[in-house]
Structures are given as structure tokens and as C-alpha cells.
């Protein structure tokens, strides 16, 4: 691929705030037509990275090129070609759906006829046609996010930056959201999204795992899962802490993580370990609902990757 095939390029991008280095020498490239996911816990630097790429926050060091523009030298030139959807709803609640769309269309210099066709298409895809004259403040959370996407897409961007776009959005709206994004990918648009939903991260062509401002891994979801040494065993129980204490000394468990419904373990030989675990827990008289192997999620990979990093640099 030539240089022009990458519409987003970061090289050593760094940003510090008074008490924390939010983004630390981050480098990666996103190809035209690719959907790229940024994954990591709160405070990993996802939002700060998005803001620097959107040209609304100045980096301390390093460089970023978006849609062919150097974001330190000419962020304003790039803005015409970027759609940015911040994490927090950024539209005007006193304006109707149509008025918000018109406002953003005007700011991007979209001609009236084009605006009308594009808005009609996008609203149709978002399932929002009947809400055109409703005030944005009166929309549900999912509708607001979809309106944010419609406004961001009413001009024809080369690069779309979405910061946790489906956070707090109902499943139906999330599906609409992704359908719109895939349509755009077919048209050669590049999408960078951050997400807290792991199933969404798995929809991306490639994902980068961020931790404390640094990138741990960057690969396709399939390859990342292949990197995992062993399998993920889920222990479903109401009280995970005593279980964790009980089994913490056992051989063959590389990672333990408390999750919403119990405990996730990464083990080398699930076939041998699962009966052993069941026996040990039963002997101690602890109550668990199930002990089973599950498909690894991005979160499991993430925890495993963080553990490995710690192991490499003692």
C-alpha cells in the first residue's frame, strides 16, 4: 500500500495533563476503507486520542495526519473532511432534528439539494423519519446518538471519528448505527471508533488495545484471540471473591479477573482444569452456578495482555 492509502497516521502522538500522561507515544495507521477500533478501560487515553485526531485538542509531541492534513500545522483544513462525534451528546437540544441537521450542513457548506437527499437517506436508515420536527432534547438516548451520527455525516467526510458512539444506546438503535457505518465503509470512508462494547470491537477490521495511554496490541480481532495462550473459563457465581482466593494457588491458571457474573480465568488445559476446579470448589462448600469454557472476548485478551506486560517488565 502507498502512503496515500492511509487516511489516519499517528506517529509518537503524546499528550499530558497536569496529573497524568493521557496519551504516550502512540503510533498506528488506519487504511482507507478500514474500520479501526480503540479499546481500553476508562482513562486509557481513547478520548484524548480522538480529540487530537479531530483537531480540537493540541498534542504535546508527535504528529498525526488525518485525510492528508497535518493535524498540528493545519487542523482547520482537515476539519472539512472529518466527522467527529464526541462522547457527550453535542447537539442543540432547543433545535429540532431538522434544524440541527441544517445547522451542521451549513457549517460544512453542503448545498441545499444535497442536504435534503442525504438527510432523507440517513434519517430513513436511522429510523427517524417521523421525528424530523421533534426537539433534539426530547429524543431518547439512542435517538440522540443516531441524530449525532446523521449530523456528523450530512457532509461527505473522508474520516469518521466516533468516541464511544453506542454508549447507552438501545440494541435496535445500535443495529441501525452499525448498518449506516457499514454502508459508508463500502463508499471508501475510514472509520475510527472507540468502544466499551466488546462485541462491537469484534466488528472492527482491526483493534488497538490501549492501556494508560500506550498501545499494548494492535491486530485483527481473530489474530488477537489466536494470541491467547489457552482458553477462557467462566465461573458463574454470586460471590466471586472467596472462589478467587480459594483457587489462586492452583497450577495452570495464568489470569484471573472478576467480571459482572463471576470470574474469568485463562487456563492452559481447559479439559483437565474444569473438573479440577469444580471439585476444589465443591470441596470448599462454595456455591457456583457453572464452570465452563467460553469464547474469549476482547476484555479477556486485554487483561491477559496487561498481565503479560507486567511479566515482561518486572
Amino acid at each position, binding site marked *: 500500500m502507498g502512503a496515500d492509502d492511509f487516511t489516519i497516521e499517528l506517529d509518537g502522538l503524546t499528550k499530558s495533563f497536569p496529573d497524568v500522561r493521557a496519551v504516550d507515544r502512540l503510533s498506528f495507521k488506519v487504511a482507507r476503507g478500514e474500520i479501526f477500533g480503540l479499546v481500553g478501560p476508562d482513562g486509557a487515553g481513547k478520548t484524548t486520542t480522538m480529540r487530537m485526531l479531530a483537531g*480540537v*485538542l493540541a498534542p504535546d509531541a508527535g504528529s498525526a495526519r488525518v485525510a492528508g492534513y497535518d493535524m498540528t500545522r493545519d487542523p482547520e483544513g482537515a476539519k472539512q473532511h472529518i466527522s467527529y*462525534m*464526541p462522547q457527550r451528546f453535542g447537539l442543540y437540544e432547543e*433545535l429540532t432534528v431538522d434544524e440541527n441537521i441544517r445547522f451542521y450542513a451549513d457549517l460544512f457548506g453542503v448545498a441545499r439539494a444535497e442536504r435534503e437527499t442525504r438527510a432523507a437517506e440517513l434519517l430513513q436508515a436511522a429510523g427517524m423519519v417521523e421525528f424530523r420536527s421533534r426537539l433534539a432534547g426530547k429524543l431518547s438516548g439512542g435517538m440522540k446518538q443516531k441524530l449525532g451520527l446523521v*449530523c456528523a455525516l450530512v457532509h461527505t467526510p473522508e474520516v469518521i471519528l466516533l468516541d464511544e458512539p453506542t454508549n447507552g444506546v438501545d440494541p435496535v438503535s445500535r443495529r441501525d448505527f452499525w448498518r449506516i457505518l457499514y454502508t459508508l465503509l463500502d463508499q471508501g470512508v475510514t472509520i475510527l471508533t472507540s468502544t466499551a462494547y466488546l462485541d462491537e470491537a469484534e466488528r472492527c477490521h482491526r483493534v488497538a488495545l490501549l492501556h494508560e495511554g500506550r498501545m499494548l496490541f494492535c491486530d485483527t480481532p481473530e489474530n488477537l484471540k489466536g494470541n491467547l495462550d489457552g482458553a477462557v473459563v467462566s465461573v458463574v457465581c454470586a460471590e466471586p471473591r472467596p472462589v478467587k482466593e480459594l483457587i489462586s494457588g492452583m497450577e495452570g491458571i495464568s489470569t484471573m479477573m472478576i467480571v459482572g457474573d463471576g470470574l474469568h480465568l485463562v487456563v492452559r488445559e481447559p479439559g483437565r482444569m474444569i473438573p479440577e476446579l469444580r471439585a476444589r470448589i465443591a470441596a470448599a462448600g462454595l456455591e457456583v452456578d457453572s464452570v465452563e469454557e467460553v469464547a474469549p472476548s476482547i476484555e479477556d485478551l486485554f487483561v491477559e495482555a496487561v498481565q503479560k506486560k507486567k511479566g515482561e517488565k518486572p
Partner: protein
Amino acid sequence: MNWNRLRAMARKEMIQIRRDARSIGIVIAMPIVMLLAFGYGVSFDTKHIPVYVYDREQSQASRDFLKRFQSSRYFNVVRSVGNYPELVHAVDAGTCQIGIVIPPDFSARLGSGQAVRIQAIFDGTDSNSASLGMSYTEAVAQAHSAKLQLEWLRARGQGSVRAPLSVDSRTWFNENLESMVTIVPGVVAMVMAVVGTFLTSLTVAREWERGTMEQLISTPVTPLEIMLGKLLPYVAIGLIDTSVCAIMAVWWFEVPFRGHIWVFLLSTTLFLTVVLSLGYFFSVVAKTQLAASQISLIATFLPAFLLSGFVYPIDQMPAVVQGITHIVPARYYMAILRNVFLKGSSVFNMWPDFFGLALFAAILGLAATRIFRKKLT
């Protein structure tokens, strides 16, 4: 500068003002309420001072004299009392501000050509009213003396006697010397200083608070377009507000408007540029609506009230304070409005004030175009 983006910003701002009940309140109610409150509340006239009299003689002569108080609009003879303690009590209780005591030998002494001493007691807790009351009382006594003297001379056959000196006063521009006439144009200036700054102090801070700013600065809109788009609707609103205030001044408070409407509109536009830019400036710096509105109230209300010549005449101030008034833009607008209303002055008559106002409009307007940064911090 892109005309379409500017228009989009201004249109968005207008829609927001129209749909936000609080904005509507500030835009429509605040100027009218302030004008009424100050127009009626701030009065420097001392009229109808309550007077108690203790007439110890009850003669035709004493009643003639007391009638002069009754007929003057400066006094209001509330009661006639029958003893001294009652009078003292009325002054103590504040039911009257002046107590007048006519001696029992009033007509006897007059008849014999002796000097009559009338006692007048003043409530000095409000020294301004007391000294005005004192001079009005003296004026009444003197006028009555002169009349008695003439009658006495006529009675002695001196047919054509004229008073040796008299002052024929005429007050120009404010014929009845009513303080309301000078106050109301000043109130218009003050109201616009406060309302104008307040209006724009909310606009940018609101976008930061509600999270709309992050999305806005990710678009190609320029800082100049943001500023002008936010200020232009308020210039229009400010001109309407000032005109409403001016119309109320003329029709409700009966203040004469003798100048040209375009002198009024020109000075108002310049002043609005000053105050709206200032409010925008505070809004950009403060980033929260509460802080911005408080800064703007403090920064405009007190200087406009105390240092613009509204309450205290500037030429009576100590030299240092007079110097400070030059950096209070309301000072120039206040002077222009009073002159336009009462004197009908032209721009040429008032060029130093216009120059001062234009200078501030240029400085603050330019500063406002530079203050905004399309970046988060």
C-alpha cells in the same frame, strides 16, 4: 469569513433565544423591569415634605403665613397640633420631617414692627432632605417678609414700590427641574450596560457547559464566524430593547426627545458593540454560565451606577475618580443619551463622547475576535 456559516450561526442562536424561556425573560422583561424600578425608585427630588405646624396664635396673620406652605408643592402640611410635645413626638416618630412653631405674639410683633422669630425643627437623619427643606423654608419666610414689607410701605403711602432685585430664572432642557427627566435617559444607558453584557455572557459558556462546543469546534467554522454569529442577533435585540426603553421614557415618563433618531441609534450601536463584546469576552474566559453572568453583573452594574455620572455628577468627583470614569464606557453613552434626549445635540456637539465610545467599541470588538480558541484545554 464565510457568509453561509455566519448566517447558520446567527440563525441557530436566534432559534435558541426564542425557545429558551430564560433568554426571553432576559431579553424582554429585564430591560422593562429595570427601567420601571430605576425610573421610579431613584428620585433626587424632594417634594411634598411632610410638615406639622403648631400655631400658638391662631390669628389671620399666622394663617396667611402658613398658607404659603400649603400652596407650595415642596411641602405637605399634614397636621396642625395643639401642643409642643405632640410636635416633638411627630418628629421623633418620623411622621413629619419639619415642625413649624408660630409664636403666640406673631401678629402683635408684626404690628409693632418688631422682628418675629419662627421656630422650625428639621429631621436631620436624611441630611439631603433636611438641607433642602431648610432652604425651601427660608425661601417661604423671605417671600412672605417681602410681601409684608410691601404692604407696610403701601399702607404708608409709598404707592409704587418695587423690590430692588429679583432673579428671573429659567431652566433650560429640564424646565421644571425634575430629576426624573435626567434620570430616565441615564437609566436607559444603565439598563443596556447591564442587560447587554449579561445577554452575551451566557452564550459561549452555555455551549461549554452543555457539551455542544466540542462538536462545534470540530467543524470548519472560524472563531470570527462564531463571534459574529453569536453577537449579531444580540445587536438586533439590543437595538429593539433600547428603542423600547426610549419609547417608554418618552410616553410613560414624559421625558422629551429632542435629538435625531439616528444619533440615538448610532450611539446605541456603538455602545452595544462595547457591552456585547465585553459579555462575550467574559463568557469565553469564564466557561461557566454562573461565573460569566456574575462577572458581567459586577463589572457593569457598579461602574455604570456609580462612575458614569448617573448618580453623582462626574465634575464633582475627586480628580482620581474622574480619571477612572474615562474607562467606564457607560459614561460616554450616558452623556450622549442625556444630550440627545434633552438638548437634541448632534454628533458634532458630542464628539468627545462619541470618540470615547467608538474607541472602546473598536478595542473590545477586536479583543473579542481574538479571545476565542477552537481548542479544548
